[in-house]
């Protein structure tokens, strides 16, 4: 029997109970949240505020990012502490498109140059800004820029057999270097202010409720397809090689697998998913600046995955939602307390729930049904 690429995702899902639950829940969210935001009047008890919808949308892009990290860390053992860089690059590519859409509505009213360039007294558009007036081109860049960076970086790192802690450190250095570069005004990306004051996307106003609802649905779609894509990859035959590399890299190499190319391939895929997540993030939060490249951001992603449970994919989603919900709550209620809470959470999970939240739940479920030990 030969599975086609079309039904492979469904075959992968049939053995993935947690994943099916997650996708049903996601489908429900994608339908109900925009409906509750749009239909009931603002006084109705059922009404969901723009703020809440926006927040859930933002969490969903974080969840996508967490899935991307889980794919390489949980399944291939590559601990990237720089994945925020790919997210931010995707975000910047989307931001450039949105900036070009502002046109004459900017403060200085220049039809071509974004405000910050006028402010810097630039006379013409830098070459790398050309093309970004087209949405199709921007989408291409959203995929290409993070993908190419991952390809070049991964090629050099994996070919030199940089792995473990050393790889983690150079990924940190990568995102830190990008942060410093993007902070500079003469890089042409708006310096420390980044991009903001976006007006519309594909001709629809970003402030309009309909656009926001559609963005929300698009994000849910992005999250769902990233999940399916990663699930298909990890349950494919290549997925087994990837896990084999994680568990015994030199054995896989002696068996004749080109470990470097498997790692590179997963790393690039992961970077592209992170880039798309960033691109969906920017129009919803309305701003992108070099802070997104901050090394601390990238470390936080890893904490989401660890807390949710690595190597499950849906655990990454659970972790991203849990931690960010807690973050939103604490930074509002007890701002000075948040970083301590995050640290305590991370230590607590590492000590008491080594397989994360979903790992603890599924272990308990298995203990209750001893017959279900074998998958």
């Amino acid at each position, binding site marked *: 029997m030969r599975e086609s690429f079309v039904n492979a995702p469904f075959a992968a899902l049939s053995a993935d109970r947690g994943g099916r639950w997650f996708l049903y829940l996601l489908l429900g969210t994608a339908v109900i949240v925009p409906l509750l935001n749009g239909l009931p009047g603002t006084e109705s008890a059922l009404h969901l505020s723009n703020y809440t919808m926006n927040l859930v949308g933002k969490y969903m892009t974080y969840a996508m990012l967490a899935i991307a990290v889980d794919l390489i860390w949980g399944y291939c053992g590559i601990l990237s502490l720089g994945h925020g860089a790919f997210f931010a690059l995707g975000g910047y590519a989307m931001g450039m498109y949105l900036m070009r859409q502002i046109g004459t509505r900017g403060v200085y009213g220049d039809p071509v140059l974004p405000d910050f360039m006028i402010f810097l007294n630039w006379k013409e558009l830098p070459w790398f800004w050309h093309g970004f007036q087209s949405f199709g081109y921007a989408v291409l860049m959203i995929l290409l820029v993070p993908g190419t960076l991952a390809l070049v970086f991964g090629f050099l790192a994996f070919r030199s057999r940089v792995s473990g802690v050393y790889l983690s450190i150079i990924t940190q250095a990568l995102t830190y270097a990008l942060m410093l570069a993007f902070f500079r005004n003469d890089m042409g990306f708006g310096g420390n202010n980044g991009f903001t004051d976006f007006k519309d996307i594909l001709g629809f106003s970003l402030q309009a409720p309909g656009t926001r609802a559609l963005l929300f649905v698009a994000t849910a779609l992005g999250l769902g397809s990233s999940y399916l894509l990663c699930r298909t990859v990890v349950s494919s035959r290549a997925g*087994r*090689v990837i896990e084999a590399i994680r568990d*015994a890299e*030199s054995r896989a*190499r*002696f068996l004749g697998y080109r470990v470097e190319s498997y790692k590179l*391939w997963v790393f690039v895929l992961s970077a592209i998913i992170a880039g798309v997540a960033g691109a969906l993030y920017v129009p919803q939060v309305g701003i992108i600046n070099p802070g997104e490249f901050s090394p601390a951001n990238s470390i936080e992603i890893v904490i989401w995955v660890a807390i949710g449970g690595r190597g499950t994919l849906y655990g990454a989603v659970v972790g991203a939602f849990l931690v960010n919900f807690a973050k939103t709550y604490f930074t509002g209620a007890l701002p000075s307390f948040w970083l301590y809470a995050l640290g305590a959470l991370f230590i607590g999970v590492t000590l008491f729930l080594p397989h994360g939240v979903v790992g603890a739940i599924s272990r308990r479920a298995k203990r209750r049904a001893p017959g279900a030990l074998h998958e």
Partner: protein
Amino acid sequence: MSEPGAAKSLMLSLEDVTVSFDGFRALNALTLYIEAGELRCIIGPNGAGKTTMMDVITGKTRPDQGSAWFGKSTDLLQLTEPEIAQAGIGRKFQKPTVFENQSVFANLELAMSGAKTVWKWLRARPTPQQLDRIDAVLATIGLSTLRGQRAGALSHGQKQWLEIGMLLIQEPQLLLVDEPVAGMTPQEIERTAELLVSLAGKHTLVVVEHDMEFVRSIAKTVTVLHEGSVLAQGDMNFIQADAKVKQVYLGE
């Protein structure tokens, strides 16, 4: 150094191989010939260069000088580790390294020779012949009834056999086996000896081992390494009678 008999074909020729680490000569002009179908045991005290020799053959370490040929036409020094594995040299590590999170069957499937590049592997499905081959290897290593078991749950001896099975399924011409019986029970050692002896002839085996009883039970020819080169070579009785060997290795 006399030339080996030209009648039998050589499987492996190491000539004048030297490897230094920070001034320490792990291999010192080592010259060693292995004939096709042979079961050769390599012994030697710690630091004699046994593992370094394996590393040179599998491409993990590049020698400072010397040559390493596989068969007549394959220059091992020109190939990468995966290429050497594809060319037909399998290596069993000292510690059992199997893929613990996958089933015994999946371990063998992963090890099967064939397309190993990302795209080909992603699209390929095992053919009926390949499935038969996995069954045959499972029978050889005595793990037929445990095919669905997670490899991590196997006993130490079973893991070693599974790893040997993973090498066999690639149908290598040359098998390098590093301390196969370390930590095994006497029964397991006996089974391992039977397994290795049954493989010789069809495959060429190079076994590095410390357990003298075990070496005596399987080997026709034993090579003693000392300080990175060959100290003595011959059958076990000859080796044990050799004065130099007694001095450096058998501790007398």
